[in-house]
């Protein structure tokens, strides 16, 4: 009997499978992953795992026995090669799996450096899977020269690990400032200072011309003509949703695999969840790359597969760990036109993003209280007048009672 087949055994796929069973779904559930390991947490890959402080056993999403105990047929190390919508089955090599409901949870893949820029040289890495990190683990030895291409969160987290382990780290960012795509200048400045004080060389507004070397990377040429010696390089220039299977099956793609508010794609038997899905949000359409999203959208889609009709409402949140600093982000800052900085205790601070009078997001730096307050205000669709936020004399907790509902019809596009 065909049941639920899930392509992709990351956070979203695992969450969907567990929730469907938890809700009492009695049919077969098949969870197919292309990595050779059971579902695990990805965030530590660029943090504790890279640093050697957390092994795979601690990163597993569930105990090994969980899947079998719950009648979830976990197939690891299998790449799905095609979706046959006519028959309702997917092919993984010579094997096929029939489905009544198919969920695509293929996640995303790291953008690679093109071959013309030295992307195929040995010693050039990206960070997405546990195998990626295992492959580079031996490179992290004191005094070696690590070049990081891209000043987003992945690049900065890798830089922090490199610096902590005594490497000579240079990070280049082609935009005028690190984190430009995802954060305000205030947040960028904080992290620039943090890395500089830990000995990382940060060069902004400068692009990679190409990596050079014979077989293996040995240097880099930058857009200003500078040449740098390099022992190994990490490319952190973004990720792309893995939509190829969906595309080949003629599902509608719009940035990611297009779904409605329930997570259903253009085929009523096929759903998409996590990084690879684009879904309606605040009058527009977004794709989210975050653990919280993967987990909760997976749960909502499980409910919808079982016949409930629950619209997914994203409540975005993110975090990053660098050195002894924890950054927590609530909301999405896209479209902000104003930024306020609130100083907390002992060097902690928070950055509050607004569009007009509406609070959009908060970046909290070693300031869990500001994060939790901002998250609560945002999740209840409230906003808070800026003059309360900047008044450091008021306890951040009081902002919750001072928050007011966002006016009806106000959207963020």
């Amino acid at each position, binding site marked *: 009997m065909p049941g639920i087949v899930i392509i992709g055994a990351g956070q979203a796929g695992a969450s969907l499978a567990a929730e469907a069973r*938890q809700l009492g779904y009695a049919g077969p559930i098949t969870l197919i992953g292309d990595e050779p390991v059971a579902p695990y*947490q990805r*965030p*530590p890959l660029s*943090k504790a795992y890279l640093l050697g402080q957390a092994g795979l056993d*601690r*990163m597993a*999403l*569930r*105990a090994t*026995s*969980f899947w079998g*105990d719950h009648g979830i047929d976990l197939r690891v190390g299998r790449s799905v090669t095609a979706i046959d919508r006519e028959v309702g089955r997917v092919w993984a090599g010579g094997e096929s799996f029939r489905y009544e409901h198919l969920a695509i949870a293929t996640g995303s893949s790291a953008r690679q450096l093109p071959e013309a820029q030295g992307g195929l040289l040995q010693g050039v890495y990206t960070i997405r899977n546990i195998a990626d990190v295992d492959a580079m683990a031996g490179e992290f030895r004191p005094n070696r020269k690590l070049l990081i291409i891209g000043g987003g969160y992945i690049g900065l987290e890798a830089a922090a690990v490199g610096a902590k382990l005594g490497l000579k780290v240079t990070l280049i960012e082609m935009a005028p400032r690190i984190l430009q795509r995802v954060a305000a200048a205030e947040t960028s400045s904080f992290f620039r200072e943090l890395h500089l004080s830990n000995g990382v060389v940060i060069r902004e507004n400068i692009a990679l011309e190409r990596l050079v070397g014979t077989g293996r990377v040995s240097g880099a040429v930058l857009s200003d003509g500078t040449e740098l010696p390099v022992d190994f390089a990490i490319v952190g220039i973004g990720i792309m949703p893995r939509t190829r299977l969906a595309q080949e099956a003629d599902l509608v793609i719009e940035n990611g695999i297009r779904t409605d508010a329930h997570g259903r794609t253009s085929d009523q038997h096929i759903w998409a969840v996590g990084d690879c899905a684009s879904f309606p949000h605040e009058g527009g359409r977004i794709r989210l790359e975050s*653990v*919280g999203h993967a*987990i909760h959208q997976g749960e909502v889609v499980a409910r919808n597969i079982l016949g409930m009709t629950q619209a997914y409402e994203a409540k975005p*949140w993110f*975090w990053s*760990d660098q050195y002894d600093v*924890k950054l*927590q982000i609530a909301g999405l800052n896209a479209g902000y036109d104003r930024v306020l900085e609130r100083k907390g205790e002992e060097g902690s601070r928070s950055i509050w993003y607004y569009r007009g009078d509406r609070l959009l997001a908060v970046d909290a730096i*070693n*300031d*869990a*209280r500001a994060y*939790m*307050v901002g*998250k*609560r205000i945002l999740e209840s669709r409230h906003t808070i007048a800026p003059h309360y936020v900047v008044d450091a004399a008021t306890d951040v*907790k009081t902002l919750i009672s001072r928050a007011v509902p966002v006016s009806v019809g106000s959207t963020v596009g």
Partner: protein
Amino acid sequence: MVKITYVEYTGQAHVVDVRQGATVMEGARDNGIPGIEADCGGGCSCATCHAYIDPSWVAKLPAKQPMEEDMLEFAYGADLSRSRLTCQIKVNGALEGLILHLPERQA
């Protein structure tokens, strides 16, 4: 191994063995105990591994770090006299017999 009792909100108790060095959150995860979500995987970033420590045990646990304290202040249904984030409690022999109660929901 250290014996820990996790009591679900429904009253269902699970007495399980947790290995030393794991966290109390990991003990719940590894034993498939529902009620602890731990979305961030143990990074003290999300406050979804909240539990109420049995009153007899509160004083025997290591003190909270400021980050945990701050997250708990806003966790759903937290009781600051006995709430903890279970990802921040490392299991060792001194916790033999620990009892904790899971909240109705995590967020």
